[in-house]
């Protein structure tokens, strides 16, 4: 089995875009190749595209060959699309990793993104009912995720004493981290007071507890170690462990709403494969679709004890100079969340952190982690990256 490296990454501008899906994919591809002049579209032998709502919002299937055509890539090993809603991007990276590791492919681009803003605003609320078990949870009007995460937050507050201030501190931190990210949807800081008094969305979640809807795309390039040595002069960043776990899809089959069992399973496997533990993670990008998510992720990734997620943010342990700086590029709360793009955005930030060139650098970062959740907390995806193989 071969070692696999991430050698380049770039994003389009994320936000409410006056641009089509194919526009943002082109922007992301160009930025990705621009990130590393040592690799060109002629070096790429495979392409995996991650997008969830391409049929619904852009009426476009067979997306990967389209992206290949637009980016001047002529794939020979793989050219297809993957979908796992909010974790589509990370799924693409895991698949590309497997193909490169096993020798099926040598140099693979993983590009992910969405065009979600359409003229009828109700369309996206309606489309989101496809994200759950449509015939059962969707039939209840569950679609956009705030109600589910609101009920998770209420239970976590009751069980563990987590407070609204704990939630607010997550959004204040992530909005501060997004300040230096020119590609982020939101680049203005918010005060604790603003976060505490923002307009209600679904109680107890208020405006800044929720990530926005976003247009945008991102791309990374993975290469086998041997090729990577010739295709980049930057420090090599290795994928060391991956996992994707799911225990249920419909709400009726969720084992526990405040302890995410599938996340614990995924984390355990990814740590084991990477030969590290949670104490070894220097920097992490976790799925902060809502502030409560990040708090539960601290716990179930093992950064702190179960129930201590609120104290972890309060003590600054997830901030710079804390135990594990989390969402150093602003996370979903700042950058936004074009579903297929998010896992790739996280990979780009970890690559830059481990190469020592992030906008907000964690000094001496050697081991990094990304985490996506998808659906109604139904699947969890964890990847561990390192400076060493």
């Amino acid at each position, binding site marked *: 089995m071969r070692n696999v490296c991430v050698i380049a990454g770039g994003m389009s501008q994320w936000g409410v875009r006056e641009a089509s899906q194919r526009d943002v994919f082109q922007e992301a591809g160009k930025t990705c190749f621009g990130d590393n002049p040592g690799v060109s579209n002629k070096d790429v032998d495979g392409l995996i595209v991650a997008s969830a709502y391409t049929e619904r919002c852009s009426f476009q299937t067979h997306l990967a060959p389209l992206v290949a055509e637009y980016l001047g890539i002529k794939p020979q090993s793989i050219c297809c699309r993957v979908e796992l809603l909010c974790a589509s991007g990370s799924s693409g990276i895991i698949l590309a990793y497997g193909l490169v590791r096993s020798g099926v492919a040598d140099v693979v681009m993983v590009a992910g993104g969405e065009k979600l803003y359409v003229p009828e605003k109700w369309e996206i609320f309606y489309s989101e009912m496809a994200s759950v078990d449509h015939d059962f949870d969707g039939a209840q009007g569950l679609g956009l995720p*705030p*109600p589910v995460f609101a009920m998770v937050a*209420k239970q976590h507050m009751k069980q563990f004493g987590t407070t609204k201030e704990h939630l607010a501190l997550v959004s204040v931190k992530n909005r501060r981290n997004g300040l230096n990210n020119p590609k982020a949807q939101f680049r203005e800081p918010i005060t604790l007071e603003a976060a505490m008094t923002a307009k209600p969305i*679904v109680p107890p979640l208020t405006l800044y507890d929720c990530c926005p809807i976003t247009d945008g795309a991102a791309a990374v390039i993975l290469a086998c170690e041997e090729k990577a040595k010739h295709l980049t002069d930057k420090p090599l960043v290795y994928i060391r462990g991956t996992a994707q776990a799911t225990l249920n899809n419909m709400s*009726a089959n*969720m084992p526990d709403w405040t302890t995410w069992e599938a996340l614990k399973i995924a984390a355990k496997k990814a740590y084991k494969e990477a030969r590290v533990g949670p104490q070894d993670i220097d920097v992490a990008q976790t799925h902060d679709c809502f502030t409560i998510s990040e708090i539960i992720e601290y716990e179930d990734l093992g950064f702190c004890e179960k129930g201590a997620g609120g104290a972890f943010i309060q003590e600054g342990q997830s901030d710079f100079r804390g135990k594990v700086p989390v969402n150093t590029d602003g996370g979903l709360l700042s950058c936004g969340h074009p579903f297929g793009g998010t896992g790739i955005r996280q990979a780009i930030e970890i690559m830059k952190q481990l190469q020592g060139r992030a906008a907000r650098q964690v000094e001496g970062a050697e081991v990094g982690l990304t985490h996506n959740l998808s659906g109604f907390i139904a699947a969890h995806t964890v990847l561990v990256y390192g400076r060493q193989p």
Partner: protein
Amino acid sequence: MPGLKILEGRYIATMDLYPQEAKEFNRIYPFYEFLKEGRFTTTRCKDCGLQSFPPRVICPNCLSENLEWVDLPTRAKVKVVTEEEVGVPLGFEKPLIHALIDLGGKLTMFTRIVNCKVGQGPATWKWGFSDC
């Protein structure tokens, strides 16, 4: 598909591409027929005994097709409730009241609460899969 009564008149205006509750489109249509009778049901495997929800055509444990319909409780305890004001999808009224309910320890699930405002007593409320 001309000639299907369930598609007459209205269906072109809805967003689902086929009606879930129709026997022409869904092998678990008895679930919806039972709902009309006020029964909340699911399938149980006659071979291994596993009861699944949502209902199936194949047992997810032993893969048997030998399934039967069984009744689930129609009374449940609300574990947590919240009201959605922003982002309510087309076809649902504001506020959309969501709850995590416990059906006698047998099943927990999300449902919507109708005919009852948050804070009102249980006398008037009704949950889930209503036939309205």
